[in-house]
């Protein structure tokens, strides 16, 4: 394969839809992620609201502590947005520190979740509700972890000055992903921790 062959792609102008294909691809992917969460929510609803199965044994669902944790994650969505605002003002240090703040808030969230796992008083192996509680929160935790890795990559690219106000689809995509993780958590928190009757006292 010669170099001439490699680079003779003609410039073809596609239909002008005004859409950013990368962002659109990400959003469609996030729809399918939402469906994956949907499968687990479907199981949760089936067990808790139709089957009326309760949490196993002596347990402690720290709803109040988790509310604070929810606030931390919601706050991190704002800091992720500050990164984009700073970029539009070409303030590279602002981008970096906003991303760093998001990263730290996300890490605190993940740490508190792991701490919660330790004080819950039941394990994934304790009955079906234990399994689905850990799966839902664990699946979300996995997404937070992936988000943290992406934020790390975004910070590396910020250091090498790769984002510009005109061309920053990567940064935009990472922030959209982070908002998605945040929104899923708010839904999860509402359904699993807050809906009346979800956290009943042990019998």
């Amino acid at each position, binding site marked *: 394969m010669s170099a001439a062959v490699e680079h003779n*792609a*003609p410039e073809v102008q596609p239909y002008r839809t005004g859409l950013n294909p990368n962002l659109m*691809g990400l959003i469609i992917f996030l729809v399918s992620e939402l469906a994956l969460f949907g499968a687990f929510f479907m199981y949760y609803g089936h067990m808790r609201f139709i089957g009326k199965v309760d949490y196993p044994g002596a347990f402690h669902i720290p709803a109040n502590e988790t509310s604070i944790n929810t606030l931390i994650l919601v706050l991190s969505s704002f800091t992720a947005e500050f990164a984009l605002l700073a970029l539009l003002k070409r303030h590279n240090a602002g981008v970096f520190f906003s991303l760093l703040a998001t990263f730290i808030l996300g890490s605190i969230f993940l740490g508190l979740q792991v701490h919660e796992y330790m004080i819950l008083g039941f394990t994934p192996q304790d009955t079906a509700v234990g399994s689905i509680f850990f799966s839902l929160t664990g699946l979300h935790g996995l997404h937070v972890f992936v988000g943290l890795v992406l934020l790390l990559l975004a910070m590396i690219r910020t250091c090498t000055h790769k984002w510009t106000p005109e061309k920053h689809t990567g940064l935009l995509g990472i922030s959209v992903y982070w908002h998605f993780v945040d929104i899923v958590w708010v839904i999860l928190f509402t359904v699993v921790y807050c809906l009346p009757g979800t956290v009943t006292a042990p019998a």
Partner: protein
Amino acid sequence: MTTALKPNLARCIWTSALFAVLAMLVAAAVRQILGMDPVVQWSTLVVVAYIFGAVGFIVGIGGFDYWWPWIIGKDIDPHDHSQHGAYSWRDYFKFNTDHKVIGIQYIVFTFIMFLIGGMFAMIFRAELANPGYQVLSDEQYNALISQHGVIMIFVFLVPVFAGIGNYVIPLMLGAPDMAFPRVNAVSFWLLPIASFTLLSSFAFGSFDTGWTGYPTLSEQSPFGGTLFQIGVIIAGSSSIATAVNFLVTIVTMRAPGMTLFRMPLLVWANLATSALVVAATPFVAGAMFMAMFDREMGTNFFTIAGGGSAIAYQHIFWFYSHPAVYIMVLPGFGIISEVIATHSRKPVFGYRAVAFSSAGIAVLGFSVWAHHMFASGMASWLRVPIMISTLLIAIPTGIKIFSWLGTVWDGVVRLTTANLFALGFIIAFTIGGLSGVMLAVVPFDVSITNSYFIVAHFHYVLFGGSILTIFAGFYHWFPKVTGRMYNERLGRLHFWIVFIALNVTFFPMHYQGLMGMPRRVADYAPEFGWSNTLISVASFALGASTLIFVYNMIHSARHGKPAGANPWGGLTLEWLLSSPPPVFNFPVTPRVIGGPYRFGEEGARHAIIPEPEPAETEKVGA
């Protein structure tokens, strides 16, 4: 660079082994640090090895070579086409970003899987030829029927349409490639991993649950059952990635003038299918994850002793797997519309109705899942609404059948092999559709559930439906892909053997089912002896006919007479290009000026490709 470091299959071997071993070590080490038993059970570590081995394979084939500079914060060159296009046969075994190469990779690979899955069917038809036990034990029989189903569904029927779509859709849209060529390549290379995972379950005691893998039966099967779950998850992620790609391509990469209602119907069908895949496939992944956690991590999603619910698995599984039926047949509907219009020289009858019926099927497809569970003990109030919605879905399907008949009616019908398959499809699919309407009726379904009537129904839909459309598509676009004509006489012979053998194989199964012969059992009552012998003989003829097809394709690709750009007189964009198309498809942006099926209008054209300006094509290093 030595061969072992370049992105190729040789590098895959050591990268997947390295990733697998490292992942096992890390998993054991993490458990050790957290004060748990480092090896909870050996099979859990094998699961970790399989999943990370798959990641290692993608790394080895070169899936991340382009993104690596981005990851470490360097620039990437969006005009790097070094992985694009096939210049020798070796390029088909590499990570290639050209949608035409990926399409061929998909089609050839999935067809090999079709042959393997068909071989399994031949083996268990030999067992079923006579009452009593011939060649297989009960366990082997169940393992083979399960593998047959899973291989055919997850690594043949679903991805082969992705392959045909990959080849044809960017050409039909006037696009240079798919929207995400590298994601496209990754989603192809996930398929060999999925197939390897599924087939390797034979080495671990296989799985004997049927393709549905219902708990609690699946929780008792050997370790092969876990490999089935991993294989389905990997195949599912591949089809989600392809669907995202198709959606973005179809929305953003249409040539100027290609409005939504000037798109060929194959594109419409793939638009609906991709939307279905994106919204539905994660549900099967969720069900498989939960079942896998139950088996390998001791969770209690579906174990009755732990308070779990086996019905919940069926709900989540069928919430995907009923839409999956449309995922496996909607693109075929699109192929049939193309083939019938082109070979009957008539505009598609009711173009908009067909386009909207695809969307209607996609939406309604989500409301009918529980008709697979009428006899399962689910909430009984769900039965009648699901029955009604299932009957409703016959309406958009009927619209399509009327459209095809209306298109053939009064047309100048040319009985080429492609068109024969399309016409045969209409007959076979209508039979399958009618038995589907019968099965939607609750009392009928409850009385014949799990009998051979079900087998007859879904083989009429999937073989008589999907596979005939696939053959129609293969014959229709063969001249475009290879630049040569296939042997028409052998093609017709292939069609008639397939069509007769298909009906002799699957039609008597209706009778068997009504008389009460249960499926998924290796032995049966002696009164079914003669009909089963007949079915087995016909199924061997069906298997043998595939050899004619393979010979025809391979021989014609090398020695067939040159086809020219447009052997069928098609109007859509792919027929305006040379056969095979140039590496970068269109030398200049085509312009779409009319509908895609303007047959019979004097001088009507769908699109034009303007004369390229010499300065444009000479530009090197753009």
